[in-house]
C-alpha cells in the first residue's frame, strides 16, 4: 500500500515534517501545501533534511503556495497544480493528511 502524505503546516513551528520524514515508506510520496512549502526555504534546516533524502524522496509541492511565498521549487521536486493534486490523491492507495 502506498501513501501520499500531505503537510500544510510550517516546519519551523511544529514537528509534523520531521515526524513524517521519519515514518515515510519507500514507495510513499510527500506533498507540501500551504505553510508547509516553507520547508523549501533556502539555507534552512528543514530544506537540509529534505535534501538529505532527495535521492529517494518523491516530493511534490503546490505551485500557487510557492508563488505566494516567493520560494523556488528545487529540481529534485515537482511543482503541481490542483488538478495534479487530485491525480496524486487517486494514484496513491491512500492519503494521509497531517491535520
Amino acid at each position, binding site marked *: 500500500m502506498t501513501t501520499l502524505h500531505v503537510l500544510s503546516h*510550517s516546519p*519551523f*513551528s511544529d514537528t509534523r515534517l520531521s515526524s513524517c520524514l521519519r515514518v515515510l515508506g519507500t514507495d510513499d510520496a510527500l506533498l507540501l501545501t*500551504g*505553510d508547509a512549502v*516553507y520547508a523549501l*526555504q*533556502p*539555507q*534552512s*534546516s528543514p*530544506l537540509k533534511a529534505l535534501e538529505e533524502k532527495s535521492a529517494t524522496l518523491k516530493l511534490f509541492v503546490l505551485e*500557487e*503556495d510557492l*508563488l*505566494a*511565498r*516567493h520560494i523556488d521549487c528545487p529540481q529534485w521536486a515537482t511543482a503541481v497544480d490542483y488538478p495534479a493534486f487530485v491525480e496524486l490523491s487517486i494514484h496513491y492507495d491512500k492519503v494521509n493528511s497531517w491535520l
Partner: protein
Amino acid sequence: MAKSLLIISRQAPWSGPGAKEALDLVLAGGAFDLPIALMFMDDGVFQLVPGQNAAALQQKNLQANLQALSMFGVDDVFACGHSLAERGISPAHLAVDDVHALSTDEVRALIDRFDQVITL
C-alpha cells in the same frame, strides 16, 4: 502619557488572519499616536520576504499595509535576528525599509522597555 505598547507578530502571512490582524492593530495604534512598536518573530518574519504574490492565493497584498507603517507614525519596527537566521532570510533584503534585526539580548531588552506587550 499613554502607555507604550509592543506588538509581537508571530504568524506567517498567508495561512490565516493572524498576520493581518496584528498589523491592523499596530496601524490603528499609530493612527491614535500611541507610543507603539512592532516586532516580527518566529514565522512572522516570513511577512518581510520580498517578492511575495498574494494574487496566487486570491488574497490581499499584506505588503502594501506594511509600507503604510511609517505613514501611520510607526517607526519602531524590529525583527528577531534568530528567527531570520533560522529561516535563511537575510536582514539586508527585506520587503520593508528600516526594519532593525535584533539579537536575543536586544529582544529581551525591547520587551522589558515597553509598558504592555501583545503577542499574536
